[in-house]
């Protein structure tokens, strides 16, 4: 079974306490929605869960098949979409996907399939992509290795209506069809997503 459980996660930046003991649990097929105004710590929480920012305190446990993954394994297993995630502007979309697929030791096919569904041309240089196209690429990159845990920070940011519809369908499929698939979604405003079973409002 896949399970994400975090408890009393705390993080400060200098004197500023951004996360003050946040806890939650997500099980397969479920999504946890984290909301709150700008600066409330949504992205910080997701970066802590992804393992790219060390929390000052608390506990983060992520299990796949009843086995707790260590921090290094967790980093390589998750799918992550965030505004500060960038790719090589000197390479094409296809070259970026192929590079990361080689690092992740998987075929790039899943990434190409996602980008095809999101109508992103793979022969374009990343440096020439619009912000909405970059967001589509982030989705293709995040789903490249068929992760079970998706960490989505403002996942529909900058997307037009077809883009949002396509990525919502991908999220829905992930929660419905991926064995052990679960997600944590951070967004300033509340989102209507079918499988959200818990909410954390960091604005309170």
């Amino acid at each position: 079974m896949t399970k994400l459980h975090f408890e009393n996660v705390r993080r400060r930046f200098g004197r500023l306490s951004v996360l003050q003991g946040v806890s939650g649990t997500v099980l397969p097929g479920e999504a946890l929605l984290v909301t709150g105004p700008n600066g409330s710590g949504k992205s910080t929480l997701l970066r802590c869960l992804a393992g790219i920012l060390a929390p000052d305190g608390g506990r983060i446990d992520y299990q796949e098949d009843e086995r707790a993954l260590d921090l290094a394994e967790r980093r390589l297993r998750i799918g992550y979409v965030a505004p500060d995630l960038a790719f090589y502007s000197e390479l094409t979309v296809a070259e970026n996907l192929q590079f990361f697929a080689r690092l992740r030791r998987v075929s790039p096919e899943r990434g190409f399939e996602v980008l095809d569904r999101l109508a992103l041309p793979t022969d374009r240089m990343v440096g020439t992509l619009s912000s909405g196209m970059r967001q589509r690429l982030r989705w293709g990159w995040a789903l490249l290795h068929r992760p079970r845990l998706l960490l989505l920070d403002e996942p529909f940011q900058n997307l037009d209506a077809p883009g949002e519809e396509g990525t919502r369908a991908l999220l829905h499929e992930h929660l419905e069809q991926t064995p052990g698939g679960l997600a944590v979604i951070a967004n300033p405003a509340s989102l209507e997503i079918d499988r959200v079973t818990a909410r954390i409002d960091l604005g309170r």
Partner: protein
Amino acid sequence: MSPLASTWAAEVAAVFAKEWRCELRTKVALNTLGLFAVTTLVVASVSLGPLGVSKAQGSALLPVLLWLILLFSVAAGLPRAFVQEEESQTATALRLSATPSALFCGKLLYSLTLVVALEALITPIYVTIMNLQVARPGLLVTALAAGGYGLAAGSTLVAAIIAQARSKGTLFSVLSFPILLPLLILVIELTRNAVLGDPAGMALAQLLLYDASVSIFGLMLFPVVWNP
């Protein structure tokens, strides 16, 4: 080769290929290293020239000058190996995709090929312009290989350490001094031995030990400095 080792090697090869593909499209490091190396080479040859120093002075002075040209050329281009990843925000995707040791080795391999290319460009011109008589060319090649590897490994290690710091330029200078100083002392001595026709002596063994130490230290330290 075991499957684990072959996939690790594939990761190293992917990083190496990506570095060169990006470099060949932007040519930032190639231009920086090349411009700095050629400029200092021309300045040194115009100032000293083949007749500017006596043969006795030359054997003492010219190896030092050669390695200073190589050191400052490398210092002008290689510190950006990891800084570029942080500044362009590609570091997050790398952290979530690459095994740290494979990333370090891929970057090191890229730096090494740049240094070797620089040495292959600069050294024959330098030896010719300065009329430097090398009694043991084989030992000179060994010094360039071992010294070049040390420069690449030391620079990659320092580049990784400074990547997340604010004052990157200053920190590179401060950290490079203790890391690269022993290398320079040893490689200059070895180059001087090659010029004079002396045996390699302890300098070669110490240089190889330095290279091995920096590589092992880099592989152990990199995951700590790269990840939070």
